[in-house]
């Protein structure tokens, strides 16, 4: 070994040790950042693969945010979740996802690494909306924007099934100060965020779907 390293000027033992120390330093930095990273749940664009695989697959190119016509896709900024910096998340403050209205699938088409899976992208829900009922003014905007029939429900004071369509609700119970307020069916809601974006009193929250780990 010693004789070999003398003949080879490009790779002496000393430089080999130095290079391996550097390589292990880089390895350590990657591992260390991975350890300290605090994982969170996010509302991803439609068709997103599972949370762990999304972190692996997404290459943070931002193409989905570029092509999104409603500008609802935001690229995650610096955060404690170091592993997910730069990944796309849906922020209802900027818009809502129109994929379930059948109007758009551009982020899915454009994703180079298939982190947004083009196979049946709409089957998986991305989040869930929630109305803070004490702030709701019964403006019915959520009814008009919701792409899924039966995801927004209005209680039926007569004891029947809740109303799923806005036009069925009797005028007198959907007044501003009516005690009856709509609510969201958490199973049917897909989390597109259109209702939350257009909500006039801004009384809706968008929550990510917690994945079973």
């Amino acid at each position, binding site marked *: 070994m010693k004789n070999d390293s003398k003949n080879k000027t490009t790779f002496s033992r000393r*430089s080999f040790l*130095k*290079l*391996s120390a*550097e*390589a*292990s*330093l*880089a*390895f*350590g*930095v*990657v*591992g260390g*950042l*991975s350890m300290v990273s605090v994982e969170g749940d996010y509302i991803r664009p439609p068709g997103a693969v599972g949370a*762990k*695989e999304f*972190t*692996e*697959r*997404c*290459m*943070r*190119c*931002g*193409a989905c*945010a*570029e*092509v*999104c*016509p409603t*500008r609802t896709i*935001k*690229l995650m*900024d*610096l955060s404690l979740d*170091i*592993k997910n*910096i*730069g990944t796309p998340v849906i922020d209802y403050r*900027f818009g809502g996802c129109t994929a379930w209205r059948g109007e758009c699938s*551009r982020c899915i088409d*454009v994703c*180079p*690494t*298939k982190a947004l899976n083009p196979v049946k992208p709409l089957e998986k829900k991305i989040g869930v909306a929630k109305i803070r009922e004490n702030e709701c003014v019964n403006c019915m905007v959520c009814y008009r924007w919701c792409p899924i029939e039966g995801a927004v429900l209005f209680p039926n004071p007569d004891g029947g099934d809740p109303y799923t369509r806005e036009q069925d609700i009797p005028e007198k119970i959907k007044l501003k100060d009516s005690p009856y307020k709509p609510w969201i069916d958490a199973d049917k809601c897909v989390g597109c965020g259109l209702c939350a974006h257009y909500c006039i009193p801004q009384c809706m929250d968008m929550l990510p779907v917690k994945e079973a780990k």
Partner: protein
Amino acid sequence: MRIAKLRSWSGFLVLTGILLAAYFQYPFSGCSYLKLGYLRLVCPVGFVEATLATKSIIWELVPGFAIICILLFVLGRAYCSWVCPAAQAGDKLVGFIGKFMPPSLMNGVGRKWRRARKRISGKLNLGFRDGTALFIGAGVGIAVFGYPFFCLFCPIGVVSRNLIELATHYTLRLELVMLALPLLLGLFFRSGWKCMCPVGTLRGLIAKPNRTLIPIKNTELCNGCRKCEQVCPSGLSPFLNILDPTKCIKCFKCVDECPQKALAVKINPNK
């Protein structure tokens, strides 16, 4: 100064291109170059990182990667000085600040910076080979810990994501502070950040067989002033014909600065 101007224009086009592409909803960023039907050209490092992190090959990107390899054989590391959004944004920023500052100050700071780098890197003696070692170590880490580590910190990604957010949501991102990282790390390496930039390193490794677009010295005109060695950002020497294609970023500063006009770019010097 002709080539320097061309280079500056090409960088301007790339930066405004990303901004306009994001504004007009076209998928062109610093990491995803082109989408033509099924053909996708993306950042080779992004492709390698996604491959390592997922431990599977994304076959859709393989033809594009092959095209980028061919481009690298032909053009060498030209990307680094002609296209790289981070380098170009840095140049533009320095130029912009220079407009408001007295030139003596700018030159003084530049000189101090280079001197500090020389002192630190002289002690540590780190160069391109160390950059490659770091790249390989990080690559193993990416495969083990399963996330594209470098994509988060890549100055190209930071600049391009900022341009995208600027065009789509009219905001800048906190992420910009991460640009300080390559600047500081650049102090430790003989010719700055380009010694260890993974994007440049990978491009350099692929561009090893490149033998085209090389500055060739006209021995009759050259008076041996060695100005070309001084201006070369990668520490190469066109004077002694030391032109390593893994390091040369084809900026042709040597051709621009030669007082005798003794250097010329040869497309195919073997002919």
